[in-house]
């Protein structure tokens, strides 16, 4: 199973790209998806507590279970306006 993962703002700079595809196993959560990204890019790990996640353009809890084809974004504090 595969998710499309998006990074924005400061997190995009740290991830080194705006977007990647990440493989995951059935039953995994958004939190586990973040760990997969952080294992590829360890600099992401410290941001776990200061970002929120969205799933298919809706804010989602870390415990949300993924489905194949989901679009998940990791969003640092927003600063529009």
């Amino acid at each position, binding site marked *: 199973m595969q998710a499309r993962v998006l990074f924005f703002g400061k997190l995009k700079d740290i991830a080194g790209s705006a977007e990647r595809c990440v493989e995951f196993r059935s039953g995994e959560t958004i939190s586990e998806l973040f760990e997969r990204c952080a294992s590829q890019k360890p600099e992401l790990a410290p941001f776990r507590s200061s970002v*929120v996640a969205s799933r298919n353009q809706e804010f989602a809890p870390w415990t949300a279970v993924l*489905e194949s084809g989901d679009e998940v974004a990791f969003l640092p504090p927003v600063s529009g306006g």
Partner: protein
Amino acid sequence: MTTAAPSPTADLVQLGREPIAADALIRHVRQAHDGAVVTFDGCVRNHSHGRATLYLEYESYESMAIEKMKEIAASLHTLFAIDGVAIAHRLGRLEIGETSVFIAVSAPHRKAAFDACRHAIDTLKKTVPIWKKEFFEDGAVWADGELPPLPAATPAAKPAS
């Protein structure tokens, strides 16, 4: 003769790289049954935390941001006795003095228009996925922001769109 119930004005929500046409947003919300129009114009300041700002860049998770902006506009109608709402946010590079966000709210009476306009910008700054990078003479930084509140854990998964 009594007045007929006015038809509600459709919300106008914009997110793009072109300069914001504030006049058009105001004309959109301003109807004959309104007694008040309150607007908020967020403009690029020439300073931030005591340092001279050169310019800003805004980026966004556009598909989600436009939905969140529509949700804010819709929520104003349930929270306040208002008529029309227009919300626009600009992306890309903005120079000092340019408008980054513009909100116009019309209502029969002023209190609702003020409350709704303020609620709209406060909520936008907390929940819409837009990020601002500030450029100074000696470098650039992503602005401090607000972490959007997360929903409680949901049992039902939403299918991919």
